[in-house]
């Protein structure tokens, strides 16, 4: 199948071609190079496939319906084994749309059986498909934390990024999740939302935008949630292509560099996690995965504690998106 995907090498070339101080130089300036992971890894984030029912404009994975990469049950089992062997407490499932992997539920069942905290990242709309409509109840039953993307609290801004009808569809699913107790006060079912900027600009302060989401979603739709994560757009994948084509690459990178905040460096997510690709290769984070910046333990089948912990992180210029302003991670702002 002919899939139009940017090669990781040309992405790295592009990131290198921008006239900015490199991220490595910046880290050296503050005596933070080489950047190393912590003494213990708490999160394993696995990307179980690049297939998605949406094709969002900011997607660093370049996921979409035409993609075919899907993690096998065998690789999932190896991930669980490593989590077990190294006491990695949290399994963070991402994609594409993880639901489209036929072994997604198997993975969740197995992980909860070994008492791991499970997070599944969800684009919401996929749960409106009748083939996946049973999943909210399955998530509730297994106490899965749902991290749902909703780039903005209005239809116009959301649909512009993710496609026509996405906002309305997301609202319906959020109501359903609320009905099951997700994101409701006093309930232990966690529903966190993710904001992304609608273009080449930095995310606002998390607290302020969270308050806006809370007020608007409650007033207009009666929807509640636990927290909002304000996550910046990373110059990787489809968003990198957008930056290039729209003439925003240089100014956006300059903006990220100007907003570099040294205080975020110790809290960047790669220091506390390991990321696994659909075919079992290991990376410091999902962004490095898409850029094919491999890390020391190469494959899940051969992963030792001494390689995971205190490993040197493969940083590059896209890392500026993790350290701009209050910082950005899969769990929102860093400081």
């Amino acid at each position: 199948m002919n899939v139009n995907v940017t090669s990781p090498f040309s992405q790295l070339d592009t990131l290198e071609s921008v006239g900015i101080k490199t991220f490595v130089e910046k880290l050296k300036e503050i005596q933070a190079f080489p950047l190393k992971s912590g003494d213990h890894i708490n999160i394993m984030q696995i990307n179980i496939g690049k297939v998605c029912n949406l094709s969002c404009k900011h997607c660093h994975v370049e996921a979409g319906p035409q993609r075919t990469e899907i993690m096998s049950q065998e690789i999932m089992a190896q991930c669980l084994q490593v989590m077990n062997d190294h006491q990695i407490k949290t399994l963070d499932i991402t994609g594409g749309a993880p639901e489209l992997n036929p072994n997604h539920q198997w993975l969740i069942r197995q992980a909860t059986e070994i008492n791991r905290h499970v997070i599944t990242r969800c684009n919401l709309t996929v749960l409106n498909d009748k083939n996946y409509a049973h999943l909210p109840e399955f998530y509730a039953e297994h106490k899965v934390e749902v991290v749902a993307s909703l780039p903005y609290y209005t239809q116009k801004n959301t649909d512009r990024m993710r496609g026509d009808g996405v906002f309305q569809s997301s609202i319906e699913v959020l109501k359903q999740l609320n009905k099951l107790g997700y994101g409701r006060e006093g309930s232990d079912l966690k529903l966190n939302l993710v904001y992304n900027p609608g273009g080449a600009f930095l995310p606002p302060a998390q607290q302020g935008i969270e308050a806006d989401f809370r007020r608007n979603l409650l007033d207009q739709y009666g929807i509640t949630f636990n927290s909002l994560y304000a996550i910046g757009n990373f110059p990787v994948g489809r968003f990198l292509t957008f930056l290039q084509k729209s003439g925003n690459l240089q100014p956006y990178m300059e903006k990220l560099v100007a907003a570099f905040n040294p205080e975020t460096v110790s809290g960047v997510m790669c220091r506390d996690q390991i990321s696994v690709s659909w075919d079992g290769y290991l990376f410091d984070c999902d962004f490095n995965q898409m850029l094919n910046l491999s890390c020391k333990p190469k494959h899940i089948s051969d992963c030792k504690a001494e390689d995971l912990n205190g490993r040197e992180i493969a940083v590059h210029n896209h890392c500026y998106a993790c350290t701009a302003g209050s910082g950005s991670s899969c769990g929102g702002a860093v400081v």
Partner: protein
Amino acid sequence: MDTYYNPADLAKFSTMGEEAPDLWQKFMAYYGAVFENGALTAREKALIALAVAHAIQCPYCIDAYTQGALEKGANEAQMTEAIHVACAIRGGAALVHGVQMKNVAKKIGF
């Protein structure tokens, strides 16, 4: 110089500190403090700045505060309303000066 306004010039703003560094530093410290969260939120201030930028028709400020307002979480509906506020005040100010016209006309007329 092809045009009086060049987007690249915005990045040269700090060169205004070259001949008068003390004044520049004072201005920048004041400027920074003005835009912090206070009795008004940083977003409300960014929207006011955007409206004023349109009233004074400064392309540098329009560029900077369009981005600034978005980065404070504002949306285009809010930004458009802010510009209408500028427009209403500018238009209203023109119109209310019509009273002066009337005063003058009355004074010199029969």
